[in-house]
């Protein structure tokens, strides 16, 4: 390839990258600027705020502070429970031989294609019957249960990439299969568990559907429901709304930036070797 052509091509790809970077960043930058603007400044979307108008953030916190606490109280235990249940189900399915294990795996996988709408109405009555309607514990249970297909799929594939010889050696040494799981396999699987934890924190923190179906009061409503209500009120105040939105974005965004590598490695699993 001639040097001129190559240079031309590099310039073209650079332009494409810059254009897309601007498109990707613009909404976030505008949201940050808006969150610091006083109400009269809002009409000038491209201007910088005259001075930092922190009041937007105090309004947002007074309206959504409780939701943020609820979101944390729901997400942290639900993530731990869901990756644990995925590991517990994935372990036997990775090691069982024969048609039985494959059948159970297939059935659990079909859960991934189920749109949650088909469970929504019975789930509402089921959770009410269990006395868990509008409780944080109810959200733990529901998020754990609906994570079973994906978490099982993920952890089964991860365990399948752990050398089988480790398992067989442990059994020959007299280590029981349950002991092997808790003492050897789980501690050796931290990278897979971390990747799954990241995926699950996004899914659970960001959930709206289960939250609007199964919670009704400030005692248990997560921040996503509050933002949704805030955004669809008749007179939307974009300053406080952008402030609250940005605060709700931060926890998962930071987690992803910190754990990005393990997320990618875990997602590609055995296929990525």
């Amino acid at each position, binding site marked *: 390839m001639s040097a001129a052509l190559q240079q031309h091509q590099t310039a073209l790809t650079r332009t494409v990258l810059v254009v897309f970077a601007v498109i990707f960043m613009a909404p976030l930058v505008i949201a940050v600027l808006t969150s610091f603007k006083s109400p009269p400044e809002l009409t000038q979307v491209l201007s910088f705020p005259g001075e930092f108008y922190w009041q937007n953030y105090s309004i947002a916190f007074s309206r959504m502070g409780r939701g943020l606490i609820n979101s944390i109280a729901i997400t942290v235990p639900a993530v731990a429970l869901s990756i644990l249940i995925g590991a517990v189900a994935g372990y036997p399915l990775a090691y069982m031989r024969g048609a039985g294990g494959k059948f159970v795996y297939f059935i659990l996988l079909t859960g991934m294609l189920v749109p949650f709408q088909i469970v929504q109405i019975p789930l509402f009555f089921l959770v009410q019957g269990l006395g868990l309607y509008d409780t944080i514990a109810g959200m733990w249970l529901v998020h754990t249960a609906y994570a079973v297909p994906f978490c099982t799929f993920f952890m089964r594939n991860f365990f*399948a990439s752990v050398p089988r010889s480790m398992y067989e050696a442990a059994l020959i040494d007299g280590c029981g299969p349950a002991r092997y799981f808790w003492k050897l396999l789980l501690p050796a699987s931290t990278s897979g568990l971390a990747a799954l934890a990241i995926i699950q924190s996004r899914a659970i923190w960001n959930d709206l559907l289960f939250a609007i179906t199964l919670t009704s009061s400030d005692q248990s409503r997560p921040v996503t429901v509050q933002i949704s209500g805030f955004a669809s009120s008749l007179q939307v105040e974009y300053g406080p709304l952008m402030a609250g939105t940005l605060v709700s974005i931060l926890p998962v965004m930071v987690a992803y930036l910190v754990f990005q590598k393990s997320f990618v490695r875990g997602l590609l699993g055995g296929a990525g070797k």
Partner: protein
Amino acid sequence: MIPREWIPTRTTRTHLAFLALPVALFATFYVYPIISSVYLSMHSWDGFSPDMRWVGLQNYKTLLAQPRFFNAVLNNIAWVAFMLIVPTGIGLMLAAILDRGIRGESVYRIIFFLPFTIPAVAVAAIWRWMYEPTNGLITTVLDLAGLGWAAQNWLGDPAVVNASLMGAVAWWTTGFAFLVFFAGLRNIPTECIEAARIEGATSWQIFWKVSFPLLWPSTIIVLGMSAIDAMRLFDIVWAMTQGGPAYSSEVLATQMYDLAFGRFEMGRASAVSVYLLLIAAVVIMPYILYMSSRVQDSEAE
């Protein structure tokens, strides 16, 4: 020897004990509610009264005669096509460009991936502000460029609302496709690329004849997840338009929610959800079959 006889049975018993709780959860939260929804879909019920009237397949027939229902089905199909093509295509393009080794690579990687981490309701809030018809960013930029005539009532006009929603979703989900493709490209052994280059292939040929086929594990993950997300699509539509204006941006999930929790027509809402399940099964079952058949492949190795 006794242990050889003994270990498998004990192992099997442990395995079954491990499976008990996940399977019980699956039965309680997937199987039972699905059966219950199918049962409900053959009734007329408001969710409160003890009077639940059997209507057979009437709800299904009524829906088929409704333009509102058909519109939601068509929207769902459009969403599947859109999710499979647009975020996947842009993500693949960005990953391929960035894979050639460009300065500032890690910064671009973070920028392209960031929107994916944001909750749907936050995407909705931000993009409602972008699409604000008088002061929003998009209208402002069009005005500045002298294209003010092209500005629309982005979320208020039935003719453009779906395209507006898709723009927001492309911004939101492209990062996932990008990151998975990028990781996949990084995993391709450089010898394969080098060999093709020595043979005299152009970079365009190398990408389509060598890299892209080797990207299959990434491609299957991205396509499968896109199809699943498209069928489950609810949050973003609900938070941005609630299906409006005049039901024009409705998908089956938001229609079902409106019928069940807005109008308390539990039977008809259940029938919508059964249709949705059937469509999802047709669209996604090939993916599930493929993923579960890959089990045998890995064990055979």
